[in-house]
């Protein structure tokens, strides 16, 4: 398959729509274990990204440059902890697809693996810490395994998304070990981590573009 820069931009705009829609649900999840603002934060970030796409990236067809601009505008709008995390994802993904105006299977693999690993490197979280890494690490491990078996990206993405979902759902039983919710200890148990949930929702949105 091939992802064009226009399709990539539509995906990012779909994320803006997604997080506007999911704002309250994600806040409600966060209220159980944190300060209740995760949905607001994601929405602020993607609304800023949407403006950047409409105002600065209309004529841009370099996917790496689009990705850098998306990451930077998300970061500047939100700060918080998700700002540096997602910005690192977009920046590392950009490096992996430098100068590309469209992504074939090889570069789609590279994009998503670099995106997920960029977030992991910034946040230094491990599987089981009850963070977005519980979604993203199983996702990229699955992609890496499919890649080594030369599975086409469409199929590989579907497999990886299943792993991401399992990872996200696993956070329900975990006692938080990172970020603000860590302070909760056992009281964090029984609730899906909002960061793991929003990471899954993002990946799930990409499904319609592969």
């Amino acid at each position, binding site marked *: 398959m091939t992802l064009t820069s226009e399709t990539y931009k539509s995906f990012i705009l779909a994320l803006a729509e997604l997080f506007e829609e999911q704002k309250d649900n994600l806040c409600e999840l966060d209220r159980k274990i944190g300060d*209740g603002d995760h949905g*607001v*934060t994601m929405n602020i970030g993607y609304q800023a990204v949407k403006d950047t796409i409409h105002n600065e990236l209309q004529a841009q067809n370099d996917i790496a440059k689009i990705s850098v601009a998306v990451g930077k505008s998300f*970061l*500047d709008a*939100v700060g*918080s*902890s998700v700002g*540096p995390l997602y910005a690192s994802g977009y920046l590392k993904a950009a490096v992996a697809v430098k100068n590309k105006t469209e992504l074939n299977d090889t570069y789609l693999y590279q994009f998503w693996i670099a995106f997920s690993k960029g977030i992991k490197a910034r946040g230094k979280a491990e599987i089981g810490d009850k963070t977005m890494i519980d979604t993203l690490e199983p996702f990229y491990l699955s992609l890496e395994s499919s890649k080594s078996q030369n599975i086409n990206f469409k199929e590989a993405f579907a497999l990886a998304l299943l792993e991401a979902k399992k990872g996200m759902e696993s956070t329900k039983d975990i006692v938080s070990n990172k970020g*603000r919710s860590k302070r909760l200890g056992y009281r964090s148990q029984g609730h899906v981590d909002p960061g793991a949930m929003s990471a899954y929702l993002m990946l799930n949105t990409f499904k319609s573009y592969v």
Partner: protein
Amino acid sequence: MKKMINNPDNVIDELMAGYLIAYPEYIKRSNLHQRALIGKKRHPNRKVSVLIGGGSGHEPAFIGYVGQGMADGVAIGNIFASPSPIPIQAVTREIHDSHGVLYIYGNYAGDLMNFEMASEMTEVEDDIETAVVIGNDDVASAKEIEERRGIAGELLVYKAAGAAADFGYDLEEVRRIAQLANDHTRSMGIGLSPCYLPQTGKPSFDLEDNEMEIGLGHHGEPGIEKTTIRTAQETVQVIMKNILKEGLYQPDDEVVVLVNGLGATSQMELYIINKEVDAILSENNIKTYKSYVGNFITSMEMGGFSVTLMKLDETLKSCIDHPVDCPNFKEV
């Protein structure tokens, strides 16, 4: 939720605008970034610049502690969210005076990542040296000291850093003194009622009318336990027991006491709390050198308070005695 605001999305920009109108002689906005504010009063002997920052919703912190004897600039985040590295870098560029910049912020995952990124960016792009002190005074938040979050004690760290900078010390010495202030400081808080996030209208935590949360964090993070509400005397006893258990404060020590309201707890109650704190200190033969009582670092309309102690040595005493002039914090 009852709040006197306009569009919830504009809360930060509007509070900054109002502050700038109120205190034009103290502060201005940087041309480099909307969320970067720069102080106008700087001691002539000061070489090192002090940068503070954090989420909004804690007013008068952090914006209110830019002034003479305190910070040179502040980076402003969204409600309870760290500022991004971009305004932090902007403030750094504006306030540095070729002797380096000290960053002071609380120990939260978001602040750590954003300030680390900002310091990487400024060292590469602007060749400005930065140093860091991370506030972690809340004894209720974790057993391990380096995992604890920063709450009201940060105010005393700003004061120590600001004084050290005014004394004309270099970056390493200002950092050392600010770190010493942090290491000598312990706090613990109590929550009585939640605050409401402007954009969700939801309470930051759930608490019954007859309950309080012991060890509550500054963003409504749950503490050690929920109990039925007690008297000021009994509540302060619980707090002081936890702070004194640290073993940092010994008979004949002199301490600064900071009784910080979270927003909805009245000054009347805070004075009563201060009296109870002093009584326990006296019982333990610890001398109150000075107490600060007020709403210094709040959580919007949250009910509750925290108690902070800072143990003094000669260095820190000279810092505490040094005058400051900020809009909401003046000592001549």
